[in-house]
């Protein structure tokens, strides 16, 4: 009899253990990870995922045979969680992200930026630098089956190219494992990438009154609130998210980050985006939570004026001269970026020109002028053109002469007193009068 009881007892222990594994595998994950990675566990526990019953395997569970699935303590685990995984629950957001400019950031490998990093720098710089923001192609490590290659993981670049074919990384903004909305709403979330000499959005925001108000009133901004409608749930200041993504009284929150952007300030010459008027209305709808229409129209006039100025006075003429030099192979260096004038041109549009345009877009006066147009002008007149003149190429010299004969540039050969008089009388301003009327030459 004793033996029978023992046998039954043993069976039930075994059955219980099996049942426990089958019914509660995430419980097993937590048991170890609470001890071994307590920070990760506690972030999750305190998160909305924790209280909503979203557990480890809901995101990290994988099917055997998936390229990045490896067996671990009786389950198949994928380290990488892609927008497709997140999209199981957050379908609308995942879809918006796939359509967004953010999701294309990983295509940088085909760009001049990546060329520069790989050629001038080298792969380590491209991996730890460029790809950490833009996202790289996530590869499987051939030496360790089904685990991620160290050269592509960790990577939370916003345009990451995932093995499942999806693009992007939700954790670029919603850092794991808390996935805190407040964190994504704060400018610091964007500032992992949107800063520095080529696109100092973070610094411009800090310079602007928007940033000033935000840092003053952060504690009052209800930033943890589930619903976060500008002008309704908070009113103290806008963050990056407020203007570009978060809900207004008429628009829902969007993860298509370009929906409210009218100009693209990225390329050498700025262009308006398709449907730019609609996009601009979307943005102005955000502005209206706090500003009257007159204020908004004034801002956009000043913003358009600056972008048009940059385009017409510097970007287009510089581009014309650059193209001639490139076409004729001037400078001696064969490869792209092997001649100094190419670097000068690059910095004029990619750094200084963008700083000026972003400064005007987000009300950062110092970035518009001293870090922006001032630098553009100085380098256009006194580095770029002199460097081109050194080639003594007839066609190029002719083009330079034509550019400098343009009404924007003839000031170089006029008496200072006359120029000052024209500034005072308003004659000089007439050159720019049409620039405030909206995007030119589109």
């Amino acid at each position, binding site marked *: 009899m004793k033996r029978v009881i023992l046998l039954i007892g043993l069976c039930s222990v075994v059955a*219980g*253990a099996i049942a426990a594994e089958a019914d509660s595998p995430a419980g097993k994950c937590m048991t170890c990870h609470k001890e071994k990675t307590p920070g990760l566990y506690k972030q999750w526990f305190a998160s909305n995922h924790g209280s909503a019953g979203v557990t480890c395997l809901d995101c990290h569970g994988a099917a055997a045979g998936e390229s990045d699935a490896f067996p671990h*303590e009786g389950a198949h685990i994928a380290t990488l969680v892609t927008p497709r995984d997140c999209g199981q629950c957050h379908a609308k957001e995942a879809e918006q992200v796939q359509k967004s400019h953010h999701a294309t950031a990983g295509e940088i490998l085909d760009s001049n930026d990546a060329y520069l990093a790989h050629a001038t720098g080298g792969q380590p710089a491209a991996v730890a630098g460029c790809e950490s923001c833009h996202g790289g192609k996530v590869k499987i490590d051939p030496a360790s089956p089904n685990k991620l290659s160290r050269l592509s993981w960790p990577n939370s670049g916003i345009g990451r190219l995932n093995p499942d074919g999806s693009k992007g990384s939700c954790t670029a903004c919603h850092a794991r494992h808390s996935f805190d909305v407040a964190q994504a709403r704060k400018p610091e979330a964007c500032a992992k990438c949107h800063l520095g000499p080529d696109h100092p959005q973070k610094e411009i925001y800090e310079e602007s009154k928007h940033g000033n108000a935000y840092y003053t009133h952060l504690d009052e901004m209800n930033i943890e609130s589930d619903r976060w409608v500008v002008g309704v749930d908070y009113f103290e200041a806008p963050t990056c998210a407020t203007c570009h993504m978060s809900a207004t009284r008429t628009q829902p929150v969007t993860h298509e980050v370009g929906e409210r952007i009218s100009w693209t300030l990225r390329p050498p010459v700025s262009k308006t985006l398709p449907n730019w008027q609609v996009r601009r209305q979307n943005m102005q709808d955000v502005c209206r939570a706090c500003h009257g229409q007159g204020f908004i129209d004034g801002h956009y006039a000043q913003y358009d004026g600056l972008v048009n100025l940059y385009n017409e006075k510097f970007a287009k003429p510089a581009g014309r001269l650059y193209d001639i030099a490139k076409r004729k192979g001037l400078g001696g260096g064969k490869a792209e970026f092997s001649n100094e004038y190419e670097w000068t041109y690059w910095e004029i549009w990619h750094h200084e020109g963008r700083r000026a345009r972003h400064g005007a877009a987000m009300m950062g006066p110092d970035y518009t002028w001293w870090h922006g147009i001032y630098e553009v002008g100085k380098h256009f007149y006194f580095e770029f053109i002199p460097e081109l003149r050194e080639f003594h190429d007839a066609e190029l010299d002719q083009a330079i002469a034509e550019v400098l004969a343009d009404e924007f540039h003839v000031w170089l050969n006029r008496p200072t007193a006359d120029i000052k008089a024209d500034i005072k009388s308003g004659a000089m301003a007439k050159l720019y009068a049409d620039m405030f009327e909206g995007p030119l030459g589109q």
Partner: protein
Amino acid sequence: MLWRMRAFLKGLSTTRTGTLGVALTTSSFLLLVFLLLLQAAGVLGNSYAGLLTFLALPGVFVAGLLLIPVGWRRLQRRTGLSTAELLRTQFPPGLVQASPFGSSLALTIAGLTVVNLLFLGFGGAAILHHMDTPEFCGTTCHAVMNPEWVTYQSSPHAHVPCVECHVGEGADALIDAKLNGLRQMWLVTVGGYRRPIPTPVTTLRPARETCEKCHWPDKFYGDRIKTIARFAADEQSTPRFTTLALKVGAGGQAGKIHWHVAADNEVRYQALDESRLVIDWVEVKRGDRYHRFTNRRAIPRDAAPPAARTLDCIDCHNRATHVYRQAEDVVDELLADGTLDRTLPWAKAAALAAIATTVPRDADREAAIAGALRAFYRRQDPRALARHPAGLDEMARALAAAHARNVHPQMNVDWGTYPSHLGHRQGRAGCFRCHNQDLVDDSGRAISSDCTLCHSLLAFESPSPFQYLEPVRPAQPDSAMHVYLQAEFTGRAP
């Protein structure tokens, strides 16, 4: 009789040397008898009296004895007389007169020789016996041994004499220990010892000879429930409980914790240095061959590694007796048993800040700790300082006592100087030295570090000590873990 003794002693007091010998021998003998009587009467008990009684006096006695013949030789050389002539001049005729059983002098010498031999035999035995007492080991070299002596007295082995583990049995063990003792005596005399002294892991007796006299592997069976109370550093010192059902059995081939030392099993390992904190490889005997797990992240050291070891008790229970606690463990235990008053606001945070404070070598512990406590409250909650002055004094006293058990500034023994290899509180320490993802076999498989391999978890930093035996609350984020651990322990499907 008395006359005869006097004549005998007078006769031996030949020269100044001889006289000194007689005086030393006689006086040390009498003093020893006197001290023994006092000790028997319970008047003397401390170890310094023991040192005098059992080491100094027999030494003086023997020295005196040796001086007597030296004196005799000197007299002989000075006077040029033969032994027979000298005997006649030194002793009265009654003593040296021949008789059938030898002269009275010869009989007296023979009798006293027997007494001497008995006395020396007894003295030698008493010396050895005295040197086997914990008091001798613990207090003779006071400064050096004090940390070990203090921790020993409050340890589970407080009633097991030091020599049971540190010397072992047999003449060779005894000789080893005495030679080592001589070396240590020299080091203490010239101050050449290290502070803190390194743990003598390499010279310990094999555990099979010592520990297993009382604790043998087959004796371990079943689970041992252990609740660890921890307190948060918040105003309420909120308690959190972790309850382990430790699977301490020896088991067979399959894992229970004492499987490592079960009769059928052999585990060998190579550490990178004497601290045995980083393991280069570990292997387990399977049939005739060893299955090895190698540390793929071990960083080779400059010095030659110690010899590979077969795992025994000491590899995990490295602090079975001389237990030094971590500051936070001490504070949590004092809070759990009520020694520290948890109703004082910020009790945990304050106690931890105070007990971890640096107490200078010659400073008053209690004053230093009380100062640190007051500084904490001035910063954190000045009103509490005003409201609970007596509570703070009491806390300082309790903390100072605990501090004195664990921290020994004279020997540079601070919190954490001597880490314990039990469990896995500090990252890769203890069990996780081998049970981690870095030690892998040829096929890349690591040794399991599954939590429930060695213990069930009945609470895990939970609000109640048996949280996971209570009904599952589905709304809790960790309810899946609750279900899993409850089923694992009870063996019942959820």
